[in-house]
């Protein structure tokens, strides 16, 4: 065995080193120095050194000078060189997000590497275009949409004729053009438009292209992430989206471009869901969920991202079920919105989850309409149950006639909860305040949300009831800061991380959101918006966010482990399974929650 093979084998998996031959890899490896950094330690500041660092193990976060988050790097990724963040080159500090083993290459070593290997040099060069081309060659996972643009946009003025547009498209060999008017993007015309709206109906090709284009197309910002763009395209079922920066089109990106950039992506499942045409097929697809989830956790994706992805898969299933049943039942007799609550609304679903949903109708339904929506709900809720999203034990489902009512009735529900906060309705309302439209008329949901949020914001007595409810979920920390384990009478089951860790945090954050009138449901977004609104102190916000991430990470890792062993994932984690450090961190996270709860108790005088 070779003295350096251990290093070269690993380097070979880390782009751009995978392009080097064994000799080159060895000469790099020879210069590497390994160092270990405990979580939270500053590894490096780009203003001090310009060497290169390879993450052998662990994860690193890059922060700007104000210690704002810029990016995250994980195993086999690099940092240390000059990095462009959203089109801007910044000095940054690298900090160990987890315990890290880092391989350092000195500045001299790095320069030598770049000189000897022009491709690598190009990869690290800060110039945008060369970076993109190098990125495609070394198939490094790109983070921004702009990096995926392979050519500039093909533009045509809105006064041009359909014929001119068609000629331009064939001469440029593209399938779509962007239509401009006064320097601004007003529409998009595709092959499909020309086929369906011109040829199929014998439209005169001398007419203006503006008459057949799709007006005001949805656009993507050049600095949006690939995941974000994918989500949007999957959700809306678009295949092309113009990419703009400061209102100016930079080019066009296709779903194919996006998927190619991410060879393995959970959102492929979303795409597959769209293609299926029967419940059985969907059930078959849903079997992929556990392993997908496990992979997401193992890949070290962050908690927020995992929540969003899992939720979007749920959303896709829901939408598909609604579409399937509507194919049978026909169009709905009135406008409606399929609304989801709780963790699905917050986009924080994980492996095991039940369904919380409802229907908001435009108006009171007559008998026939009641039957229509009953059938629709029955199909969707039963379908979700078969897909593994079990019935809500509290019956908060569209299946329940109580949660399948008109907007006005929904508002009265909220009125009643707020004016007469019985314990049960307070518990209900804490689920219902997390609300999001998954399908149908979004404005119905928006209006209800606006109404409910405003009422809760204005009524402190109601919020006091909520606070009392929040305080009924205490972190599992007893006297002398010892862990309190749940037991079912026969044996200790471990720490209930969901009910005593995550639920208290989402509850606390919901309180803050309602205090400041924030309508967003996602906990991370709520923290950010509530902080902006001044309802949360920045350090408190960071504490809660960190605690949530930490507890969730432990929980997710545990669940992934359970699934790997063929067990059903649970929320109970025995503390013995955690390392000493993790136990200490977990305890610290729980103490942060206790502190925030004490402050809440003080604020609302609930004890």
């Amino acid at each position: 065995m070779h003295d350096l093979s251990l290093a070269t084998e690993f380097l070979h998996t880390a782009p751009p080193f995978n392009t080097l031959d064994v000799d080159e890899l060895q000469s790099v490896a020879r210069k590497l120095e390994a160092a270990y950094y405990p979580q939270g330690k500053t590894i490096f500041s780009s203003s001090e050194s310009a060497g290169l660092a390879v993450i052998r193990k662990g994860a690193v976060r890059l922060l700007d000078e104000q210690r704002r988050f810029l990016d995250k790097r994980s195993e086999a990724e690099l940092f240390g060189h000059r990095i462009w963040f959203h089109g801007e080159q910044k000095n940054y500090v690298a900090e160990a997000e987890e315990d890290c083993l880092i391989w350092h290459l000195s500045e001299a070593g790095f320069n030598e590497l770049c000189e000897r290997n022009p491709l690598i040099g190009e990869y690290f060069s800060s110039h945008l275009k060369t970076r993109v081309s190098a990125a495609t060659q070394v198939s490094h996972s790109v983070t921004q949409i702009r990096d995926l643009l392979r050519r500039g946009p093909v533009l045509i003025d809105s006064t041009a004729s359909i014929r001119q547009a068609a000629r331009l498209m064939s001469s440029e060999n593209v399938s779509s053009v962007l239509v401009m008017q006064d320097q601004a993007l007003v529409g998009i015309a595709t092959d499909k438009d020309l086929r369906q709206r011109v040829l199929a109906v014998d439209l005169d090709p001398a007419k203006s292209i503006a008459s057949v284009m799709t007006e005001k197309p949805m656009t993507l910002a050049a600095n949006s992430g690939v995941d974000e763009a994918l989500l949007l395209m999957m959700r809306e079922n678009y295949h092309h989206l113009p990419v703009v920066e400061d209102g100016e089109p930079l080019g066009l990106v296709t779903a194919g471009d996006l998927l190619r950039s991410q060879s393995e992506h959970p959102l492929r499942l979303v795409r597959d869901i769209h293609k299926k045409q029967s419940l059985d097929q969907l059930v078959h697809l849903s079997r992929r969920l556990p392993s997908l989830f496990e992979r997401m956790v193992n890949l070290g994706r962050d908690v927020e991202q995992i929540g969003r992805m899992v939720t979007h898969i749920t959303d896709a299933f829901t939408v598909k079920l609604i579409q399937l049943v509507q194919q049978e039942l026909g169009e709905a007799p009135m406008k409606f919105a399929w609304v989801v609550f709780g963790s699905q609304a917050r986009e924080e679903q994980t492996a095991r989850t039940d369904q919380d949903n409802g229907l908001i109708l435009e108006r009171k339904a007559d008998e026939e309409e009641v039957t229509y929506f009953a059938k629709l709900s029955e199909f969707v809720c039963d379908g979700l149950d078969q897909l593994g999203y079990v019935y809500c034990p509290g019956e908060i489902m569209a299946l329940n006639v109580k949660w399948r009512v008109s907007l006005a009735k929904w508002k009265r529900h909220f009125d009643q909860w707020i004016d007469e906060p019985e314990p049960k309705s307070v518990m209900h309302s804490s689920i219902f305040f997390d609300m999001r439209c998954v399908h149908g008329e979004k404005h119905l949901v928006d209006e209800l949300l606006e109404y409910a949020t405003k009422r809760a914001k204005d009524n402190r007595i109601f919020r006091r009831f909520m606070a009392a409810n929040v305080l009924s979920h205490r972190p599992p920390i007893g006297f002398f800061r010892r862990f309190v384990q749940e037991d079912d009478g026969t044996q200790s089951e471990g720490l209930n991380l969901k009910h005593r860790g995550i639920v208290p945090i989402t509850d606390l954050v919901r309180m803050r959101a309602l205090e400041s009138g924030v309508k967003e449901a996602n906990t991370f977004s709520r923290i950010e918006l509530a902080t902006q609104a001044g309802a949360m102190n920045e350090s408190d916000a960071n504490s809660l966010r960190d605690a949530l991430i930490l507890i969730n990470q432990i929980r997710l890792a545990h669940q992934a482990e359970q699934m790997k062993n063929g067990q059903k994932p649970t929320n109970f984690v025995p503390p013995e399974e955690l390392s000493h450090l993790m136990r200490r961190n977990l305890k610290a996270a729980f103490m942060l929650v206790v502190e925030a709860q004490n402050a809440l108790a003080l604020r609302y005088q609930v004890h």
Partner: protein
Amino acid sequence: MDLQTLTYIVVGATFALYIGIAFWSRASSTGEFYVAGTGVHPIANGMATAADWMSAASFISMAGLIAFLGYDASVYLMGWTGGYVLLALLLAPYLRKFGKFTVPEFIGDRFYSKGARLVAVICLIVASITYVIGQMKGVGVAFGRFLEVPFEIGVLVGMGIVFIYAVMGGMKGITYTQIAQYCVLIFAYTVPAIFIALNLTGNPIPQLGLGGSMADGVALLDKLDMVVTDLGFAAYTAQKGTTLNIFLLTLSLMIGTAGLPHVIVRFFTVPKVADARISAGWALVFIAILYTTAPAVGAMARLNLMDTIQTGEVGAADGNLIYEERPEWFKNWETTGLLAFEDKNGDGRIQYYNDKNEEFAAKAASFGWKGNEMVKVDRDIMVLANPEIAKLPNWVIALVAAGGLAAALSTAAGLLLAISSAISHDVIKGMIAPGISEKKELLASRLAMAGAIAVAGYLGMNPPGFAAQVVALAFGLAASSIFPALMMGIFNKKMNREGAIVGMLTGLSTTLIYIFWFKGWFFFPGTEMAANTPDNWFMGISPEAFGAVGALLNFIAATIVSKITAAPPEHIQHLVEDIRVPKGAAAAVDH
């Protein structure tokens, strides 16, 4: 078993009970889904409210006050009861509709002004601290007696315990703890009263015993009148102050009750307004049990005290108790310094009479008495000493101690939490440092609590009056500042920010100055501007009763200022209208 050990056991057992209930109810509420239909029965909630309401002033001081002031002390009964009704019917439902659960919050939003809110906060803090002084005094008396230490040490011990109790959350808001406290308290109050009533009148119901007659056929109150007038004191059933003063004092107590935060909160912890009203009704019943017993306890205690000291004919050589033969309870209270004897004529016997009454003083001199020898009889000891004076079993005495502590601690803790929350949340977070972290907010609240306890403790040792009167002062301040602002806020949609602030400041300052004038600036002895006697009072109005006048001045000043300044914004006026219209009426339309 000796009394002290027994007291420790009983007090310890009752506290263990409260804590046990607190843990049990906290542990059992962490389920994911509530069992449908859980909720506190209105009767239970009424008991809990009653426990909140009854403080050391009600438990310890009221009967003592009645014992020594006689008929006049009934203003406290009427004022507080009336205030409670006022709060339940007039204020709580409207505040609730407004969605605000503290008075400063309501005032701040209704008068769209941080300034108004600040004034309200300050008023409430002052009123609350004054109220806590009463509790500290009560705790000091109880601890002093049962630890057999001087009163000041008793107060210090009480300060420590109150702080710990309040930091632990005071077990507030846990309804079943409150119910337990009520049960202990009412049991501790009525059991000795029943024993004494049986002893004196043969009637086990104290309320009836008070109106009944004694074994020798003489009506109890007549007997008491006779005993006290024989010693130169004013007749027990006589009215001593002017009617105006009594009326104003009652009114001050009534309207002053309105703003006290620890009671208002109770109305917001039940889901429905209707439930709140029903439990308020029940609370009234439970409060009445104690309040109607208090006059009997007061009268009988006075009679027993007099009988103990004046063993025979007034003026007879052997008519007075020999000091050396004084009973055990007398010695015990002497150690606290709340009861003191000085043998002025050197006969070794105790003469207790009113030497301020010149007519009787002359007569007393002829008996060879050289002045009242009971140089100190603190009125707050009456309830606690009562069972001992009546020679009741030790466990009854221990129970009374536990009841007194329960009353003082629950009220003190509730108020201190309200004070600390007002300072840390309303003042510091709301006005001084909005970006403060939660950790610092908690720290600020703890410091505020410690500060409030220190102030209350100091003033408890150097009190401006006895506990109930101190509390009366607190009510006076609240009456003059907060009540008018609340009323105008709810019922006068034209009342604006400027009016409210000027009104509150006028009411508060006139009342405070009037009180300080006769009681010393910030209650420091020796700084009074005039003696605190009826001749010096403005129109014969005592400082305790001036709150009602302050409230009137508040109304007047606010109305004048609001007339000459701009009307409040449109949306506030609408809001005020909305509060008074039932919500359901508007919602039912779009059905």
